């Protein structure tokens, strides 16, 4: 068992949120929660990862930003031995990762720097197919993005949304069929109004 000092313990407590629920941007927020700087948090996280890896590899060998070698056997926790399968994340969670490799049955199925690449790959998978996402920290550098970088990314998300320019009859950007949401169609055969939904003259009825 690795012994953690008080700072590491706190960092682990906070960063376990980061690693399991956060987009990369959230390292900043984790730092805010822990009342530390993002750089300190990233450094602490790296120390924690380093402790895990120290037995097998020296710094810089295993973990890189692209993480080609991160599927080395020892890096992959045995999912059967930790009980609750908590590191087996749903595919959509994977899309949150900034830097990762995605493994299924210990085979590399995707890797990426910005999450979008993985998201695209995972869209073709079954909705509940599970993969292991291993976060990668670039040793000696920081995973933290500057507020400017984050702002740029968030702008880009809004701008990159396709704005369909054709299609009748609705004169609005909302013309194209929407992607199906888990089998739901955007159009219902019934009006979402209370009262008798079959009746064309329905206006809502008091109970």
């Amino acid at each position, binding site marked *: 068992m*690795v012994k*953690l000092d008080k700072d590491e313990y706190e960092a*682990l*407590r906070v960063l*376990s*949120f980061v*690693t*399991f*629920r956060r*987009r990369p941007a*959230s390292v900043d*927020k984790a730092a805010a*929660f822990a009342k530390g700087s993002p750089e300190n948090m990233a450094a602490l996280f790296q120390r*924690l990862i380093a*402790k*895990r890896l120290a037995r097998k590899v020296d710094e810089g060998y295993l973990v890189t930003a692209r993480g080609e070698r991160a599927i080395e056997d020892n890096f992959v*926790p045995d999912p059967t*031995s*930790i009980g*609750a*399968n*908590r*590191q*087996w*994340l*749903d595919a*959509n*969670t994977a*899309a*949150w990762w900034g830097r990762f490799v995605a493994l299924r049955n210990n085979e590399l199925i995707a890797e990426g720097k910005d999450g979008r690449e993985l998201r695209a790959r995972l869209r073709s998978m079954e909705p509940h197919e599970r993969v292991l996402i291993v976060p990668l920290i670039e040793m000696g550098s920081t995973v933290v993005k500057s507020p400017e970088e984050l702002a740029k990314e968030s702008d880009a*998300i*809004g*701008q990159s*949304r396709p*704005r369909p320019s054709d299609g009748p*009859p*609705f*004169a*609005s*950007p*909302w*013309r194209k069929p*929407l992607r199906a*949401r*888990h089998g739901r169609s*955007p*159009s*219902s*055969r*019934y*009006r*979402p*109004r*209370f*009262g008798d*939904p079959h009746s064309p003259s329905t*206006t*809502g009825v*008091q*109970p």
Partner: protein
Amino acid sequence: MTTLRVTFYSYKGGVGRTIALLNVARILAGHGFRVVAVDMDLEAPGFGLLSDKWVERREVNRGVSDLMLGRMAGDERPLDEFFARPTAAFTAGDLRLMTAGTRPEVLSARIPELLEDVESEEARVFQYFAAEIEETVEPDFILFDSRTGLADIAGVCTLELPDLLVVVCGLNDQNVKGTEGFLERWFAHPARYEDTGVILCISPVPRDVDLERWGEPPVEQTVKEIAEGLLPRERAPKSRRLFGRYVQVQEGLLVVLGDKRGSWQLRFPELLGEDLVHAFHYDPLMALGEPFELSPESLLYREHRRLARSLSRAHDAGRELEADDAVRLRFMEHVLA
């Protein structure tokens, strides 16, 4: 599923629905989820009235009505212009608020016309609206604050939009009976998606200190007295008012919910009993209009946290994430070992 759409509905107003929604939104955001909260109460909008302390002041307070009416007229303004930003005092997390905007009454008046022909493009505008938020912001949660009662917009909010419906219900007759009627109607409605989940929140519930003032013991004690034969079960609802109301809720709402359990339970198998029914205690700060200053240790804030946890459990990602610190720590130590 990337985004979980949750509608907060109450049959009557004044039960703390909007406060619960906003607190849950900031709690989820504070835990790293990306959250969008939308004020769909077009007839009594509330988000736009939040003080500058919580929401950054904007020159034009655009929101739902401006977005929907604008898009229908071909307005391609970026979605970001329709969001209000909470201040740092409100949340450090990723939370966007959309107020009802500047023309809620115009949108509200157009709804019957929009829904007139269910096959038309116009009838889809609410789906387009939600989809644009999903595809542009990619939030983990969209929380819709619904209109009360059986208004058209309440139908849209409860039948068409949500994956999960949070029903907030007070303890008086109007609330319990009204909500019971609503739920029966809602469950029977053909426009409802069968896998839409339901969470019931009883609010507000008198505190033990209030009960004490009336000479009434805490509900737990009533239950204990009944179990020990000290108090006849049939007399308890009369002499113990809160207990009586709970019985009414159980016999009315919970029976309806229990009977109607169906495909939504398959969809949200991670929701446990404790997730399906919540209680929010009365807190005087709510009456004073500063509910966002609730102490994290306060009972109400902890109850809102509990609802946030339930919602995170219902989220695909949250299912893996709801472990408490101790469990996460054990796991991380294992990984590090």
